[in-house]
Every structure is written in C-alpha cells, then in structure tokens.
C-alpha cells in the first residue's frame, strides 16, 4: 500500500489499469459467448421449425356425389371416398390395387377434413363439382419441402431412341445427360435408368410410357436425386406422381393454420397445439388464482405483522428451502394428496394447477417480501405518524408501492410454471390427448409436455413440429416477460 502513495509508482498504476482493462475484456467476452450461444440455439430451432408452419395441399376437382354425402346428414358423409376418387381420377393409368394404395398414401388421413367443414357450411354444393385443396401426408409434404431428397429437374437436350425388350427399356442415342439412378420422364411415362453401357442405357419403368417414339429435345426431362430410392421414405413412383402434380400446378403451399387450431394427432401433418395451449391456459388460471393471493397474503403477514420469533424463523427458512426443491417432488406430493387422498381426477388441469401453485408459491412469497422490504420505511412511518393503523399503512402505502416487484416475481413464477413437465408426469398429464380440454377437470396436457412427447416419436416430420412447438412456447414466454417489464415500468416509482 505504501508503495502507491509514497513513490507514485508508474509501473504499479499501469498494472492496475491493465488489470481493469483485462477484467472488462473478460466481462465482454463472457457476454459475447452467452449471446452467441443464445443466437445459435434460437436460430437452430427456428430453422428446424420453419417448415412446420407450412403445409402442402393438392388442388382437386372433387365431385360431391349426392349418393355418398347425404344432404340430411352432411357430417357423416363419405368425404374420404370422394376425395380419394378425385385424387385417383388424376392418374387414370393406375389400376392395380397396390399401386392405388401407394398413390392414396400420399394423401393425409385428414385430407377430407377441410372439405367436410366447407360442405357442412355450404350444403348447397352437394351434387356439384368443387375445387378443393386436400392435405398431403407427412412424407409427401416433406418431399415437397425438399427434406427427403434434393430433386433437380433438367430438360432433355438431345435426341434419344426408346425401345422395349420384355420388361426392360433401352435408350440409345446421345446419352451424355444420363446417369444411373435418374428418372427420365417422356411419352407419358417415367423410366429409371438402371445402368449405362457403351452406347445404350437400360431402364425400368416407374410408369410405363404410352408410346415408344423418338425423344426429341424439349419433350423429355430428367429428375435426379441426392438420395437413392432405398435411402428415402418415398419411392420413385410417388415422386413421379408428385412431380406431375407439381408440373400441373396442382400443388399449393399454405400457412399451416391447423398447427394452431388442431388438437394432438399421431399424423404429423394434422398434429396441432390447440389442446396443449388450452391445457396450459387452464392450468395457469388455477395456479395464478391460488398462488398469487396466497403468496401475497403470506408475504404481507410475514414481513409486516408476524412476531419475530423461533417459529417465524423456521417458516422463513423452510420457504427458502422449498423454492429450491426439485419440481418432481411436488408431483409426487400432488399424486399422493390431490389424486389418491382427495380423489381429484388424473390428468386434469385442476390438479396440475394445484401442483404448480405449490411450486411457484415460495418464489412469489420471496419476491413479494423483497419488494416490500425495498419500500422506504419513511413512507410507512409517515403514515403511522399521521395516525394510520398498521394495517392501513401497509395496505394503503407499502403494498401499492411494492406492486411492481410483486408483479415481476409473479410473472417469473408463472414463466417457471409454464415450462414445467416433471411434476406433471406423476399426475398423468404426460399423455396423448386428442380432444381439446374445455374444463378444469377434463384430461389435458400442457405445452412443454407436448414438446417432450413429440420429440420422442419416430416420424421425421415430428422433429420439425417439436421445434415449432418450442418456438411457440418461447414466444409465449417472451410475451409474458414483455408484460412484466411493461407493468414494472408503469407502476415503478423512484425516490
């Protein structure tokens, strides 16, 4: 110490400055790394999620056959049947049962849902032919989004001769554009190149060509793929069908509203978040209406009225400890008390809300107490000085000034409750629930549980849905935080 003052040691001062500069650099680096991680995480999820917000539909001319759709009971009409007929009608050459099955598998199990709704709303259309967009199945949808294989279309620029020998087709002429594994589309058919030998290419029919004419430049084209047929979940025939639909302009891309308006489903293209969002909302209503009044009441009592003795100290220590208890413990408690002892229904938002209320209660109590502590004592003393009772001083002066802090604590608690899955496992909310819950005792699930369940399913399309659900959850949390900041700014008072 004496060094500094006695000699004004320049080297020492320089060392101090450089130490501070280093510290600042470390701080900035730490911040930069965290931001980098966050940006990477959100960008990665966002990129994965993006395709899920869109869906592909095939536009068909559907004849609403009055014999299949009874005008008196439109809801039960065989819309699947008429949609299937219309879809198959676009491919008249296909008659074998297995081919038809493979063709129809391009349509979603819920392909007719939209048409059914439209027709129920407009029964006059029965018996007429309408233009309808029908939803494609997940694999077809993934293919069209380019997620199964990259397909490149190249127009044919040379003259080719086509001949047939048995089941095999032989292409001769200028073969410079061709390679094995490609599909050549010509003369109303499609041929997969099996091998290329000196001067001739052997091919097998994916869809038999109608004629065997010479292929002139511009009348044929090539489809080449980044993944061979065995390596993707859609076969060459289905690719040819989808591409011919795309060429006809019969494929449309739309925003996938049903991702927000449907309940859960095992078909990725039909699965939506409405059930989970409704479940989260119902659960949070129960959580909030219990934990906020209880939490604030407990905080006011402990902070302002409770005598300072051994008992209140024990209670305080326990509240602080409870805030750090792993959440699964609260689930076990919920199972034992609410379900087994009180006999409340399993999987219900009521029980979920009760459990989560217990979970966030300590957070709210601690935050509320801290907020009340931060109100300058002079305000309370002034109130007491002009003759207010203790209760009046607290409720008229301390509590209103503590509201911003209490709100922040509450919203943080809600954000935690919104993201919990572990305690809900025990009380049966980790479940497949199709029907959107309408009451507090109906079976329901919540957003983070939906994410967990989808992440574990084998269908590739669900991975993108999972990411999309995470984006929705993050969005809701972001809005909640924005509300918290707005409220705090609004009610905040400085001294």
């Amino acid at each position, binding site marked *: 110490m004496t060094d500094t003052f006695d000699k004004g040691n320049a080297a020492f001062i320089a060392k101090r400055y450089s130490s501070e500069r280093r510290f600042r650099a470390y701080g900035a680096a730490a911040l930069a790394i965290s931001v980098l991680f966050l940006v990477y995480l959100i960008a990665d999820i966002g990129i994965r999620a993006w395709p899920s917000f869109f869906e592909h539909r095939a536009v068909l001319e559907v004849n609403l056959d009055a014999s299949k759709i009874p005008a008196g009971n439109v809801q039960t009409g065989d819309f699947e049947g008429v949609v299937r007929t219309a879809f198959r009608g676009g491919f008249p050459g296909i008659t074998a049962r297995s081919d038809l*099955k493979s063709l129809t*598998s391009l349509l979603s199990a819920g392909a007719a849902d939209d048409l059914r709704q439209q027709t129920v709303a407009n029964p006059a259309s029965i018996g007429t032919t309408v233009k309808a967009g029908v939803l494609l199945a997940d694999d077809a949808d993934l293919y069209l989004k380019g997620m*199964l*294989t990259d397909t490149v279309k190249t127009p044919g620029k040379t003259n080719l001769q086509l001949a047939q020998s048995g089941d095999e087709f032989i292409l001769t002429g200028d073969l410079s554009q061709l390679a094995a594994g490609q599909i050549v589309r010509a003369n109303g058919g499609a041929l997969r190149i099996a091998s290329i030998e000196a001067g001739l290419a052997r091919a097998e029919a994916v869809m038999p060509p109608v004629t065997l004419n010479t292929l002139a430049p511009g009348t044929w084209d090539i489809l080449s793929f980044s*993944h061979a047929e*065995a*390596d*993707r*979940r859609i076969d060459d025939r289905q690719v040819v069908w989808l591409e011919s639909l795309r060429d006809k302009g019969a494929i449309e891309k739309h925003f996938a509203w049903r991702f927000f308006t449907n309940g859960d*489903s*095992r*078909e990725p293209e039909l699965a939506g978040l409405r059930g989970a969002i409704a479940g989260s909302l119902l659960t949070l209503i*129960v959580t909030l*209406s*219990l934990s*906020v*009044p*209880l939490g604030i009441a407990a905080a006011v009592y402990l902070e302002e009225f409770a005598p300072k003795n051994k008992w209140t100290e024990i209670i305080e220590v326990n509240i602080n400890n409870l805030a750090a208890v792993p959440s699964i413990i609260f689930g076990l408690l919920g199972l034992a008390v609410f*379900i087994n002892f*009180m*006999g*409340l*229904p*399993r*999987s219900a938002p*009521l029980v979920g809300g*009760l459990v989560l209320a217990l979970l966030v209660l300590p957070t709210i109590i601690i935050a509320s107490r801290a907020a009340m502590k931060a109100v300058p004592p002079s305000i309370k003393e002034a109130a007491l000085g002009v003759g207010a009772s203790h209760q009046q001083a607290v409720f008229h002066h301390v509590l209103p000034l503590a509201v911003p802090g209490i709100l922040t604590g509450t919203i943080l608690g809600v954000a935690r409750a919104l993201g919990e899955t572990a305690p809900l*496992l025990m009380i*049966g909310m*980790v*479940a*497949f*629930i*199709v*029907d959107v819950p309408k009451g*507090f*005792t109906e*079976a329901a699930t919540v957003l983070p549980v939906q994410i967990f*369940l989808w*992440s*574990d*399913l*084998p*269908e*590739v399309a669900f*991975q993108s849905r999972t990411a999309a659900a995470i984006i929705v959850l993050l969005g809701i949390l972001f809005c909640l935080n924005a509300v918290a900041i707005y409220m705090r700014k609004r009610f905040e008072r400085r001294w």
Partner: protein
Amino acid sequence: MKKVLLAVSALALFAGPALARDQIRIVGSSTVYPFTTTVAENFGKTSGMKTPVVESTGTGGGLKLFCSGAGEDTPDMTNASRRIKKSEFEDCAKNGVSEIVEIKVGFDGLSIAASKEAAPMKLTKEQIFLALAKQIPDKDGKLIDNPNKLWSDIDASLPKQKIEVLGPPPTSGTRDSFAELAMEPGAAKIKPLADLKKADVKAYDAVWKSMREDGAFVEAGENDNLIVQKLQANPAAVGIFGFSFLEENSSTIKDVEIDGVAATYETIASGDYKMSRPLYVYVKKQHVGVVPGIAEFVAEYVSEKALGEDGYLGAKGLITLPGADAEKSRADATAMAVLTIDGLK
C-alpha cells in the same frame, strides 16, 4: 381476490371424487405409446366415442398403476414392452384386479446402426458382448476388466476403429431388452461364461448385465431421436435403438447386421432377426361394460385395418404378428380370455 380464492378452494374440494368416467384411460410403455395412440385416434374418429387418453409412463410404472386396484380411478389398460411378471400379476390379484386380458399386438426390433458414411460392419452377439461388457474372461477364463479399445481388438475382421456405442440408460426398457437379447446370448457363447452359468447363475447374470463404464458405451438418453442425431454427426459411433427409428431415418443411418441377419420388417416378423421383443396390451376385464367403449377399442386394435398386414399400425412402424399369432390375439380379444399365472416368470 378473496372471491376468486374461495371459488377455487371450493372447486378443489367439491370437484372430486371422480365422476363416472366415459373416457378410456391407458397407461404404460413408451415403446407401445406410438401405436396405441394411433389406434386411439382412429377409434375416436370413427366410433363417435371420446378418444382414449394414453399416458406414457413406462412399462413398470404402467403396470403398477394398472394393478393398483379395480375402479374408475384406475387405468383400464396398460401398454407393455415385455410380458407381465409373476410378481406384478400377484400384486394385481392382491389389489382386486383379478381378471386381466393379455393381447399380444406385435414386435419391436432392437437395431444396431451406424451413419451411412461409416465403413460397413457386421457383428455377432459374441462380439457385441466382448465390446460392451464391463468384464470379460481372459485366455485362462479369469474375469478381467474389458481391455478392448478398438473393434479390431475383438476380431481382426472388424474395422480398426475405436469402440463407441451409443445406447439407452438403465431406466429404459430398451436397455433391459438389449441386455437380454444381445448381451446374454453373446455371453452364453463364450466357453468360460457358459461354465459359470452352470456353476453360479448370479455371478453370471452380473457379468452380462454390467455394461462398460470407461467411455466405450455411452448412455445417450431415453430419446431415440437423440441417438440418431448423434450418429449422423459422428460416423465413428454405433447406436442402439428401436427399429421404427431406423426405418424413419433410412436416408442417414444404416443397419449393422447381427449374426448375419439384417434388421428388416421381414426378418423381424419371421423371427430370423433375433433381437426383437413382443409388445403387449393388458386390459382390465372388470372395467369392460363399466367404462364405455373398451370392447370396441380392443376390437379396433386387433382389427384387420389396424393390425393386419397392410394395416395402419404397420405403416407406423409396428412389426405386425404373423398369421397364426394374429388369429390368437384376435381370439383373445374377442373372447376376453383371462390371463392365468401359469407360464409367467
């Protein structure tokens, strides 16, 4: 605020006990979950009844809930990726669940796979055991800590590559099945261990149940999708997971043949591929007729359009039962044949 508090506490006190239930409740295995949920959804769409609620609790947890008693607050069915144990059956009987119907619904194959970019590999169960067991016998038959670092240490024909296998953690049913279907048969083929089996079964069981902990076997989490993603990123690693994940991700990962048989739909269904396990659904017969729709739901499950060769469960990756077994399942389901304790382990 007071009113809200009162209203909620009143609701909490008077909502239960559970009202008469009109929705089927199913719990159990996460392996069977993708299939039962598919049936549930189709049932809900076509029957006009409420869609059953299917919880994913794991086989053991599901059977525990299922066996906790008969009554509307207990589940009607449970999914299981193994057969019910004798102890569980007795537990059920003790709690008044006296009539259980067992329906075998199909098979799940356990596949070993690697990235498409990896060098092709074929393994035998013996090699799997030698690669992954914590202790293996040395030349003299004495148990030593597993010294194998490279695949080529086990057999010269295998690639000169570090042993790195990603698999499920011990809490997973898949891990149990892997130990029983790959490690045990592998151990049994090794002479000193086969002798040990005869001499001291407990010691033998400990040998094939213990997996390496020195980094060659990596517990990669319950989520099979995670293992698949790690394989895509790391061509040097090999992963263990359910067959449906192999099928869904055929563009990026490929199967490793076990004992010369590749895991395909056909080889698993025919039984040639030995690393497969049967999947079951258990029904509480006492609930049939009390909770509406159980008989209809079970009928849907075993129907031709679900469980048949071209059924929608096959499309979801379930390996459906061969003809005779399917007939038996159908007969069990129609007759609601009650399971007896004989033959349970």
